[in-house]
């Protein structure tokens, strides 16, 4: 099992959600986050004084998926979230030790 965490542009969330549903991902968790990467921040203006917004708003989505579909998931997120412009985000994949469905007590792939 793998935990796929993707940081994407907020307006791409619907596209990514749809793409993941299509390949059979049963659930994702979404968090509004702020951060910076190569895009850095941008400057804004208030009463004549410029200020830098260092951390830009992004959406992070977490999906726990089985090993078989992890490549499909990565591909789906990449295709759906890509604009080709700076700031499209990143995907982090890590090993997932255990998953438990609280309602039934199922564990492992059963619980995904």
């Amino acid at each position, binding site marked *: 099992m793998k935990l796929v965490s993707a940081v994407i542009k907020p307006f791409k969330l619907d596209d990514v959600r749809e793409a993941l549903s299509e390949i059979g991902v049963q659930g994702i968790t979404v968090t509004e986050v702020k951060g910076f990467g190569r895009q850095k921040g941008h400057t*804004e*203006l*208030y*009463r*004549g*004084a*410029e*200020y830098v917004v260092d951390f830009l708003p992004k959406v992070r989505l977490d999906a726990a998926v089985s090993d078989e579909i992890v490549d499909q998931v990565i591909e789906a997120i990449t295709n759906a979230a890509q604009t080709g412009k700076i700031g499209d985000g990143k995907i982090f994949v890590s090993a997932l030790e255990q998953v438990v469905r609280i309602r039934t007590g199922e564990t492992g792939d059963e619980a995904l």
Partner: protein
Amino acid sequence: MEELLNTTAGDVTQLKYALDTFYFLVCGALVMWMAAGFSMLEAGLVRSKNTTEILTKNIALFAISCIMYFVSGYAIMYGGDYFLTSITGDGVADEWTYAPSADFFFQVVFVATAMSIVSGAVAERMKLWAFLAFAVVMTGFIYPMEGSWTWGGNAVFGMYTLGDLGFSDFAGSGIVHMSGAAAALAGVLLLGARKGKYGKNGQINAIPGANLPLATLGTFILWMGWFGFNGGSVLATSDVENSNAVAVVFMNTNAAAAGGVVAALITARLLFGKADLTMALNGALAGLVAITAEPSTPSALQAHIFGAIGGVLVVFSILTLDKLKIDDPVGAISVHGVVGLLGLLLVPVTNDGSTFSGQIIGALTIFVWVFVVSLVVWGIIKAVMGIRVTEEEEYEGVDISECGMEAYPEFVTSRK
């Protein structure tokens, strides 16, 4: 008298009295509503961690203004006894054209306006109770004194009478707005800038306001309230002459605000490359302040132009005060002080009854009195109880340190 009241002429007189009283009261209520405008404007232009405190300050200062003007302010400004004991319910006997208590009501909301101006300028770092202590003196003594020299018609310490010198301030560009700004300036100078506003190398840092919809709502409320502020200052509406004057005042007040917005917006666009909403809001108020000293004699075109001059001036004034490291989060000193002075100086352009020298002497009299006495009072308060919160409290926000309450609480659970 009995016979007279029974005649048609007597009925008309009664009707005029009733109408003028009613008009006065409605205008007073409109001006009272400006307190809501100031509250929203200031709540919008401070950071969210200072919202509860600025709202507390606004409603408390309004109440204190009302009480102090009742205790001593009205008596100092217009004569009579303290605690309004000499105000009668019926004005007919004393040849008033409206009810005396309506006059008090209309005047009391003006002093609250002057005090509201101070609260925005000292926002985000002043101690609540120090501010409220100042409000007691300002509304019970400082403002009524200069009010007695101007609208009250008294000689300045028995030396000279401003009215004789050709001073004219219709609804209070100087008497209300510039005096509020003078008190604010004195406070800000003793208080210092907000932490982080000015950098070591002289750079000016932006401290963006938390809620621009509220600031915009506040500006619209003030704009609306201003019809009572200027319109009510005609003091009557029950005959053709006065109702014409009222209509002109409404028209010109609105025109000046419109001119102020457009001028400030364009000025900001040319200077910064972007349309700065906060400058447009300040521009509306600048237009209103600019026309307040004389809204009845300019033509509609002149009113637009006067407002526009105010709108341009306010942008440059805000930038200049920042360069001087005078930190005014809402631009109150520029809007009400600098443009208030402009308003006074524009009066002789359209009103033959006033003179430039009279306006300058009047402006100096008001400014010097309010600024110097305020400086002394702020100084005393500073020595006795301190006027500034600690650096840590300022960082945490004065909502917590002064009110113990957040404006937008999150993740809260109640425990017994």
